[in-house]
C-alpha cells in the first residue's frame, strides 16, 4: 500500500495520518482479490464484478470450497486475480464444465464467469441447458454489448444502431438480427431459481449487484436450482468513450433495452417477472 497522497499542510497531514490506522479501516480490497494488477482497461466493469465475487466468497467463508470457471473473452484471465481454484473453459462451454464439477462435488460453490459472446452466442446451448436442468450453479454474465478482447466486434447483445467494427454503420435488424435477451430467456426456464439483471456503475447499483451475487451463490449451495446474474457493464475501449461517459451512455441506451432488476426469484414467485 502506498503512502497517503494529499496536498495538505503538514499539520493537517498529521491529522490524516492519525486517521489511517487499522481500527478505522472501513473498506479495502478483499484479500481474495490478489495483488496482481488486472489486465482490464481503466474503468472496465470486469474489475468491479471480480471484486464483488471475491468479497462474497470471502464473506461466505467459501474460499477453499469454490470452483470458478473462466470464459474466453476479456475475462479469460479471471483466474489470475481471484485466489480460488479455477478451470479455464473453451469458448462458451463454461456451463458444461461447471455442471460436471458441481454434480461431482455437491458441497462446492461452482460458478461460471462469462461475457456476452461466450454466453449469448457460441455457448447458448450449454447455458440454456445447464440452466434448464436446474444445475446448482451460478452464471455471472457480464454484458457489455461488444467483443472487447478481439477488438470491438458486434456481440449478440449489441444494440440496434450501435456501431462496432463488424457493423460500422450500426447494427441493423435486417442485416444482423436483434440483440438477444439471454436473461429474459433464462427466466422462462423451469430450472432457474434466481434470475436477475444488475449493473455496477454507481454505489447503489454495486451494492445491489453484490446482494444479487450473494443470493445466487447461497441458492446454489442450498440446492435451489440455477442462478443467472447478468451485469450490464461498459467497455470503454470498445465503445470508444471515457469510463464516465460509458456509464452515462449505458444508463441512457443499454438500460432501455436491458431493464435492470430481478426477473425471477422463486422465493418470491415462481413465474418470471416482465420488466
Amino acid at each position, binding site marked *: *500500500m*502506498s503512502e*497517503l*497522497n*494529499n*496536498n495538505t499542510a503538514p499539520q*493537517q497531514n498529521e491529522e*490524516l495520518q*492519525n*486517521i*489511517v*490506522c487499522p481500527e*478505522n*479501516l*472501513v*473498506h*479495502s*480490497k*478483499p484479500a481474495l482479490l490478489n*495483488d496482481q*494488477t488486472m489486465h482490464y*482497461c*481503466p*474503468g*472496465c466493469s470486469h*474489475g*468491479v464484478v471480480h*471484486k464483488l465475487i471475491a468479497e462474497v466468497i470471502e*464473506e*461466505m*467463508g*467459501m474460499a*477453499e*470450497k*469454490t*470452483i470458478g470457471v473462466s470464459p474466453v473473452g476479456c475475462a479469460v484471465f479471471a483466474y489470475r486475480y481471484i*485466489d*480460488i*481454484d479455477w*478451470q*479455464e473453459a*473453451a469458448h462458451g*462451454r463454461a456451463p*458444461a*464444465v*461447471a*455442471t*460436471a464439477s458441481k454434480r*461431482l*462435488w*455437491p*458441497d*462446492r460453490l461452482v460458478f461460471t464467469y462469462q461475457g456476452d459472446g461466450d454466453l449469448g452466442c457460441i455457448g447458448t446451448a*450449454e447455458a440454456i*441447458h445447464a440452466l434448464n436442468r436446474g444445475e446448482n450453479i451460478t452464471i455471472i454474465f457480464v454484458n457489455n454489448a461488444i467483443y472487447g478482447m478481439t477488438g470491438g466486434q458486434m456481440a449478440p447483445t449489441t444494440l440496434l444502431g450501435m456501431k462496432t467494427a463488424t457493423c460500422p454503420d450500426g447494427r441493423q435488424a435486417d442485416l444482423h438480427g436483434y440483440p438477444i435477451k439471454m436473461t429474459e430467456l433464462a427466466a422462462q426456464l423451469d430450472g432457474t431459481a434466481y434470475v436477475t439483471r444488475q449493473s455496477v456503475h454507481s*454505489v447503489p447499483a454495486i451494492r445491489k449487484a453484490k446482494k444479487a451475487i450473494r443470493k445466487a451463490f447461497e441458492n446454489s*449451495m*442450498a440446492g435451489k436450482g440455477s442462478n443467472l446474474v447478468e451485469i450490464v457493464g461498459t467497455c470503454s475501449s470498445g465503445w470508444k468513450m471515457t*469510463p*464516465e461517459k460509458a456509464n452515462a451512455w449505458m444508463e441512457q441506451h443499454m438500460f432501455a433495452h436491458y431493464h435492470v432488476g430481478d426477473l425471477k426469484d422463486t422465493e418470491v414467485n415462481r413465474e418470471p417477472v416482465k420488466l
Partner: protein
Amino acid sequence: MSKIKGAVVVDVDRCKGCNLCVVACPTQTLALTTNEVNHKGYVYSYMAQPDSCIGCSSCAIVCPDGCISVYKTKPATAKPAVVADKVEIVSGVAPLVNNVPVEEEREVVLMKGNEAIAHAAVRCGCDGYFGYPITPQSEVLETLAELKPWETTGMVVLQAESEVAAINMLYGGGGTGKRVMTSSASVGIALMQEGISYMAGAEVPGVIVNVQRGGPGLGTIQPSQSDYNQATRGGGNGDYNVIVLAPNSVQEMADFVDQAFELAFKYRTPVMILTDGVIGQMMEKVVLPPYKPRRTEAELVAECPWASNGNGLKQRGVNVVTSLELDPVEMEKKNLQLQAKFKKIAENEVRYETVGCEDADYLIVAFGSAARISEKAMSLARERGIKVGLFRPITLWPFPEAEIREISKTMKGVLTMEINAGQMVFDVRAAVESQIPVAHFGRLGGIVPDPEEVVNALVEKLVK
C-alpha cells in the same frame, strides 16, 4: 476531536486513472494527478481536498481495480469485519463414502460390448459418465440408466445436450480430479475434438469411448475403423497425442475401462478406447471386473494435487486448469513438457499381441474387430498351406512400431486389414521401412469383410 472524518489510501501502483472514484465521491475529495504518473504511466487518484472526506467508501466501492482503502474516524457501529456466514450444504448425488456391493460377482455373463463398457465403468470406481445418444453406442448410456449407479456407488450419470457439452463436462469433472468418462460414435467424436485438445493441453485425465461407424459426414450407422487417423494423430488442434486402446472382444471392452483410467491418471491425459459397431453390438461371454470403490476425497487429493477442487487451497496455493499461455517462451516450454510426456508414454505403454508369428512367412496386422476376422483368415490360409501370422496392436497410439519392424524381418510380406480405405497401413510401412511389400485390404461403407476375402486379398496382393 478532529473535524476530519475520514481518509483514503490509494494504491497508486494499481490505479489506472479511470476517474470513476473522483466522480463517485460525494464530497469532491478526490482528483486525478495532472503531472505525476505511476510506474505504469497512469495518472492516479489522490485526496485533493483531504479535509472533506467523510469516509463513506463510495470511491472504494466503485473502483474497478480495488485500489482504495477507506478509514473512518468513528468506527462504524460494531459490525464484525468478515464473518463466514453459515452455508447450508445440500446433500449431493455423489457421496464420497461408497456403498459398494460387497459380494464380488465373478461369474460369466453374456452381454453386448457396449453394455460391458457400462458395467465396467460402475465397477472400476468411475465417478461420472456424461454422454449423448448416438448409434451404435447408445446402449452405454441406456445400460447406465438401468444400473442407476448413483444409488449404489454414487457415480453421476448425465445425458448431456450434445457431444460438445459432454466432452466439456469431462474436462470439468476430470479437472477436479474425478474419474470421468464419455462415449460416442465417430460423428460425435468429431464434435468432441475441441474438448479433447483442451484436455490434452490442460493435462486433464478422462476416458473417451469411440464406437466407430462409417463416414465421412453422417455416413452410415454400420461399423467401420475409419477414425484411425483421427484417433492416433490427436484429432484436434495443436501438437498432442491421445492414448488409444483397441479392444477386440467384449471381455477387453470390460477390461480396458479400468486400464484406461489408470493410464489417464498416471499421465494426466485423455485416453480413448477405439472400438467399433461390431464389438459394441456383439454379444459375448464376459467376466466382469470386481468392484473397486470410488476414491474418497482424501485419496483423490493425494493422487491429484493439481486438481481444481478447493481442497487444501491455503496450503498449496491456487490450482488452475488451463491450456492457455500467451508468453511464447513459456508456451514452448509447456509444449516441450507435453512432448516429453508423450515420449515417455511411447516408451512405456506400447501393448500388442501376436498369434502364430513364429513360423509365418506373411504377416497380417489388424486391430479390434478386424483382428478377430484376421485370426480366422489366418487359419483358413494355413489350411491352404500359406503360413500367416497375426500382429494385433492393442495400443494404436503409441503404435508398436519397433515390434512390427522386428517381427517383419523374417516375413515375405505384410498385409494390413482395416475396415477403412487404408490408414494404419502408413504406420506399418513406416515401421517396416520398405524392406518388404506392405499391402492394405479393407471394405468400406459399413461392410465387414469376411475371412475368405482376406485370404484372397493376401494371395492376390502378396503371395500371387
